[in-house]
């Protein structure tokens, strides 16, 4: 009875070891473990898991190939629908997507689809030459993609396969967007991102870094240079602060800055690398999402003696993935629930020394469906810290949009684009990913990119807007 095989756990670095390094925590399946896990798949004739995947990977098919030991073929099967399997296998919230729909998950634990995806992708990368997918005959049409995060990379790959000449413009000095500057090495090794980007380059996609569209070049100039369509995958690149007293004290970072110093600029290798970071003995990370978990776990690895999550609701409402919360708990992160910052208190040199917190209680559910936190009057107290990271979300970066008033924005500052096609109010300009939807996941941005690529192709075939 194959259902009797338990869901296979993924070998991980021990917590006591891993908090001293930035190496990947989860070590991946061995071929034996992968085949054992693949055995568990029922090969449903009507697979619900595929519906749960934003890019509709043929999940039963690739799992079957793993079961048969055809690991490289399995990876190539995934790549028919997903250009970034090694990344998605690591960072997708499978528990809310494919695995949530898995039939055997109703009574027991679902098939570990994400872990199998990661296994196949890594196996192929280590054991086979990169196979360039079939590319249609050149259409002699140029497309500009602004931003090299998950949305931009997906659009680039899809359009390249269709035969377009694709150029990606990236503002930072390395391609990958949030995959490079945001998600830490211990969750997504940068070598993997580099590998996936070079896969696109081998397909013939041109990647231009150091290009801040809106400053270095305007969108109008891109059209002037002969690009027929522009896709904006700008991401959610505006840090949110709390707008409370003392927020600009030294030692207070936005999560974007904290993670960019750590991941893009490798501050954890200072002074071998030139970019410094200040992480004191007691670190407070404000927020409860995946970015907060990435920040607090990075703080431990930077040498913090105590790293706290400061969250205004309770554990149940934490928006982070359960897996990431568990990893943080295993590593000794301290969770302080039902507290909210009122102000930051500094010393005479301007360094943050404490956060004044107020205790909260949960009231009725709010628009998000989660119980609304309400401050308890008179419950304020000081919480000593040396370093603070504010991880309460990110908004739409207005740099390019301020320079391009033709592109309409919604009241939150995101691009007002069609969710099925990515069409914006400016002819020939499409947008997708977080810059349209607000902060979401890697795979959702990729799903949006897939739809936008189809719409761009259709627009260029029909010239209909």
């Amino acid at each position, binding site marked *: 009875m194959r259902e009797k095989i338990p869901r296979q756990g993924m070998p991980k670095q021990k917590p006591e070891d891993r908090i001293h390094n930035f190496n990947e925590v989860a070590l991946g399946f061995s071929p034996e473990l992968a085949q054992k896990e693949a055995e568990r798949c029922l090969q449903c004739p009507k697979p619900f898991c595929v519906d749960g995947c934003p890019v509709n990977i043929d999940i039963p098919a690739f799992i079957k190939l793993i079961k048969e030991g055809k690991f490289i073929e399995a990876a190539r099967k995934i790549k028919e629908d997903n250009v970034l399997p090694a990344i998605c296998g690591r960072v997708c919230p499978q528990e809310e997507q494919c695995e949530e729909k898995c039939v055997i998950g109703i009574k027991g634990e679902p098939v570990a689809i994400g872990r199998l995806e990661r296994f196949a992708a890594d196996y192929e990368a280590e054991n086979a030459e990169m196979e360039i997918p079939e590319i249609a005959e050149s259409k002699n049409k140029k497309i500009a993609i602004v931003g090299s995060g998950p949305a931009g990379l997906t659009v680039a790959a899809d359009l390249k396969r269709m035969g377009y000449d694709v150029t990606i413009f990236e*503002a*930072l*000095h390395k391609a990958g967007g949030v995959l490079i*500057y945001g998600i830490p090495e211990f969750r997504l090794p940068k070598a993997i991102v580099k590998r996936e980007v070079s896969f696109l380059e081998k397909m013939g996609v041109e990647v231009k*870094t*150091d*290009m*801040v569209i809106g*400053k*270095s*070049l*305007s969108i109008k100039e891109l059209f002037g240079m002969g690009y027929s369509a522009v896709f904006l995958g700008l991401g959610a*690149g*505006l*840090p949110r*602060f709390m*707008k409370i007293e003392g*927020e*600009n004290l*030294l*030692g207070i*970072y*936005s999560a*974007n*800055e904290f993670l*960019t*110093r750590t991941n893009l*600029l*490798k501050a954890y*290798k*200072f*002074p*071998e*690398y*030139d*970019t*410094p970071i*200040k992480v004191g003995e007691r670190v407070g990370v404000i927020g409860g999402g995946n970015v907060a978990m990435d920040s607090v776990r990075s703080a431990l690895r930077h040498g913090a003696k105590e790293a706290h999550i400061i969250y205004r609701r309770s554990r149940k409402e934490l928006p982070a993935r359960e897996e990431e919360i568990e990893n943080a708990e295993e590593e000794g992160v301290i969770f302080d629930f039902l507290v909210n910052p009122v102000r930051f208190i500094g010393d005479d*040199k*301007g360094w943050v020394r404490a956060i004044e917190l107020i205790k909260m209680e949960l009231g009725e559910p709010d628009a998000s469906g989660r119980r609304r936190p309400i401050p308890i009057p008179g419950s304020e107290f000081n919480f000593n810290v040396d370093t603070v990271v504010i991880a309460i979300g990110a908004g739409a*970066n*207005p*740099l390019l949009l301020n320079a391009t008033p033709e592109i309409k924005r919604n009241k939150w500052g995101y691009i007002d684009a069609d969710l099925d096609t990515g069409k914006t109010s400016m002819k020939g300009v499409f947008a997708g990913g977080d810059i349209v939807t607000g902060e979401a996941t890697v795979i959702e941005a990729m799903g949006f990119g897939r739809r936008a690529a189809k719409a761009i192709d259709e627009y260029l075939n029909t010239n209909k807007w």
Partner: protein
Amino acid sequence: MFKILEKETLAPHINRFVIEAPLIAKNHKPGQFVVIRIYEKGERIPLTIAEVDRTEGTITLIVQEVGKTTYMLGDLKAGDVIADVIGPLGRPAEIEKVGTVVTIGGGVGTAIVYPETKAFKEVGNRVISIIGFRNKELVILEDEMRATSDELIVTTDDGSYGKKGFVSDRLQELIEKGEKIDLVVAIGPAIMMKVVSDMTKKYNIKTIVSLNAIMLDATGMCGACRVEVGGETKFACVDGPEFDAHKVDFDLLMKRLVMYREEEKIALENYLRESGEK
């Protein structure tokens, strides 16, 4: 990769670089800056553009050696390359005809105030420039500033060249002389900008400063360059770098500028030791 076409030492530890960067040259306006990263392990630092040549497709940077990155840059020669040069970034300076403009450059800040001096002159202002240095040896761009100003005043802290004193002393003299000043643009060390700002505030003369905050991406993505202007948090990289001086919290700026002083010292000492060994 961006190629250095020319390098010239203007004064001890102050170098001028002409760098091939046609796109940046094409879209640059006075007041804007670039971010550079010299090599794979390098940090990203902002440097204001001193000059561009659109026909040649070049930008000119004038850089003082103060930390590891600027020392390392100073060790590069014509023909060498810089891994990344990104820009033009920041809002351009607002160049308008207002009457009499006093432009003030403190030390290497002179290199930044120079293109603005030229721009203010070109739109028809009467321009008086004050440039100040620690001593005679460190004087830069005197001829260039003279050529674009109706009047140029040079001052040194020790009196070894021009009049002895600070740029603020010379500004005070101009004001006391009864010069009607419509706008002051002051660019240099934070403390110099603060002193000038405190002075012009008393006389109610509009003053613009360019804030040299610490930056990473310089596209508004990280918030490292937070400054307080008029009680509000602003990002120097995208909301600035130029602001109304009378609204700037200079004390906060100065504190934030030394946030990494210890690390900067370690990085520089390591670099000087290693480059000395070579």
